[in-house]
């Protein structure tokens, strides 16, 4: 058990350590923050444009491989959810419980995945003292199972 945790944590450490070296990023942050703080009352477009790049860089720099996998899954869920919603608006909601079941399956799965992500991210270690990454994954599986049982029952 202990070895497993060590391995897991080792793995999560590697991508940020070797593949994307953290060294180039620190200089980026101060410079951009400087530019923002220099023009606090200026128009929004340059600020948002800059911040998007900044956020993206920061994201690439700090997120380990596994978390990115989760993020891709989250993106997929958002796309599926939006598709269903658009269909509901355009195509009508006739079997309403079918739509609801499908939609809440994506929403529920999304929320559970975000919870898993929060629990496993290193930055939140202090918040979740009682929840190890393995425990978080078990929680995730338990929650998802329940969710899909209800969905299957609801979809008719």
């Amino acid at each position: 058990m202990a070895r497993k945790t060590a391995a897991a944590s080792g793995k999560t450490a590697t991508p940020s350590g070797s593949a994307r070296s953290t060294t180039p990023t620190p200089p980026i942050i101060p410079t951009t923050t400087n530019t923002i703080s220099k023009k606090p009352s200026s128009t929004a477009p340059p600020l948002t444009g800059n911040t998007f790049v900044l956020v993206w860089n920061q994201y690439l720099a700090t997120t380990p491989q596994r978390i990115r996998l989760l993020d891709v899954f989250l993106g997929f869920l958002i796309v599926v959810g939006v598709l269903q919603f658009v269909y509901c608006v355009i195509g009508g909601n006739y079997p309403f419980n079918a739509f609801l079941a499908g939609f809440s399956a994506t929403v529920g799965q999304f929320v559970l995945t975000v919870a898993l992500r929060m629990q496993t991210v290193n930055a939140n270690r202090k918040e979740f003292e009682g929840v190890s990454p393995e425990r978080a994954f078990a929680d995730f599986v338990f929650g998802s199972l329940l969710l899909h049982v209800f969905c299957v029952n609801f979809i008719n």
Partner: protein
Amino acid sequence: MLKAFLQDDSMRTVRSLLKATILITIAIAAVSSRLFSVIRFESIIHEFDPWFNFRATKYLVKNGFYSFWDWFDDRTWHPLGRVTGGTLYPGLMVTSGLIYHVLKFLTLPVDIRNICVLLAPAFSGLTALATYFFTKEMKNDSAGLLAAAFIAIAPGYISRSVAGSYDNEAIAIFLLMITFFLWIKALKVGSAYWGALCALFYFYMVAAWGGYVFITNMIPLHAFVLVCMGRFSPRLYTAYCSWYALGTLASMQIPFVGFLPIRSSEHMSALGVFGLLQIVAFVDYLRSLVPSKQFQTLLKTVVIVTFLLASAALVLLTVSGVIAPWSGRFYSLWDTGYAKIHIPIIASVSEHQPTAWPAFFFDLQFLVWLFPAGVYMLFRELRDEHVFVIVYAVMGSYFSGVMVRLMLTLTPCVCVSGAIAASTILENYVVLGSPKEATPEEKEAEEKKPRKGALTAEGEPKGVYSPMSKLIVSVTFTLYLLLFVTHCTWVTSNAYSSPSVVLASRLPDGSQHIIDDYREAYYWLRKNTPEDAKIMSWWDYGYQIGGMADRATLVDNNTWNNTHIATVGKAMASNEMTAYPILRQHDVDYILVIFGGLLGYSGDDINKFLWMVRIAEGVWPDEVKERNFFTARGEYKVDEGATQTMKDSLMYKMSYYNYHKLFPSGQAVDRVRGVKVPAVGPTLDILDEAFTSENWIVRIYKVKDLDNLGRDHASANAFEEGKKKKRAASKKGPVSMRV
């Protein structure tokens, strides 16, 4: 030595054994204090609603789950019928059905009635356990044990969970507490597992009681308050979102709830907080990536603007009708006068009346004044979970003031915070450690406290900690606790243990006399009327007639169709000529009225009559007028001074028909209203008296068939009595007879 016992690690097993023993004893106390009614009377289902639950449970056990689910009941609400399977909360019936089958599987054949009667006491033991866990999360074990003991015997909870009161609340309070406990646990640990468990029990709660809306609003409110206090954390997100996503989906599985969670205003706060948490979490995440101040203010504005936009959209959707507005029952919680004006049917229910102040003391005794102290102590520490109890205390106090019935939801909260206050007092005063033994830290803390308080004598801080003062406080407090136990037992035995189907009175020699008129009458109906006879009565007795007499009824306690109830009210309130067509149209064979005049039983139909008139007036304002039932001086009279409308009404006639013959002429007295009734009693043309119970509480009349010769009943009756046809045919005939 005591300290060693309380804190030493080696004593842990002993302590947990002790705790388990105490909890089991509390559960036994909870169960046994609810058995008064079974011991005094018998194992019988109480009151009104439980009779329906009992009937439904019998149906479930007999026909199986699926036919229960699709149950269309044509024996109620004649001629409409009721889609019973889709309009009830099945949790209670399924629970007792399960217990029945498990016991049967274990080759313990127990009558389903006994399971139903004893379900509420059994679950009250579990409630004590759930309250223990809940309070343990708030403070510690000792507070938990005290809270468990309080909830086990608090009259506010006993009132709805004595043996035989087989109602939804019987299991709902347990579910309420366990859901709240799991929520707090989920919030503390930040685990989706506890959140999912919380959702599961929430699902059970939704299946069991309409009061689940309380949870649906309490948890979001707690989360919202935490966010507003700047206490958003990933733990909150995990707990809330896993609960909401699973719980909402689960609650929609109950047919009676259906799409309400996304369609009605009561559930919108939960959805709103869910959305808010998504935004806040996302922003929080972005903030962790970009630690810039301007950016943060920008994000904050985004959050607030989105929130406002969402609220505006919600209002728009409500106005445009996509989301159902607040239901009438809910409105009456905010505006206490609302129900009286717009929905008399809700206002007429006695348990929907505002609470009288003495009721708080009656139901909670010394917890009433410990309650604010406990809340104050929670304020001092104010951890996340303490906020929950504080919010609960505010909401619970308000709602319990609006409706007597909601005292029930306040009681657990009062018990928890009362226990926190009590255990703080006991912890400080019962332990007889002298200040010397205390560690320097503790001593410092102890010395600090008295200086703040008013009790300090200068330079003599030890005074408060002397064995003497400790003794005084702990003895007084023990006395309070003992008084509480006595009070609870007294209230339970005197106020809450009457089945109300069977009445008890004392004979002059002190022995008990059982008045069993209801069952006598219902049994008469069961044995002497055709199987498909339709019985009309006021809605209060619908469930009992269905359960005990097994006959079809026009209206019952489900009260889903106001017009149908108003029809019955109109028939009762109008004169015979108007009433007869109504009775014929609804295939009424028998009419049942409750009359307490002979015995002095105040809950009879004449006393409820004004509500019938009001409800009927709400639908037919031209035909039924409340004013006509009051005398010119505005009095509600049944004696000689009663108005003509009153004297002509079917209800009045049925109640007092032949009553004067019981007494020497001119001496007839109505013991409820304390007045002399007219020496000449009313006559009935369209009805025949069919049955009157021993103490005249239940009177049953048979509706006459159409006359063979096509005359109206008044003239036919007059003819039978030998009057000349000519005179009887004139409309004044029966009237002149009466005078």
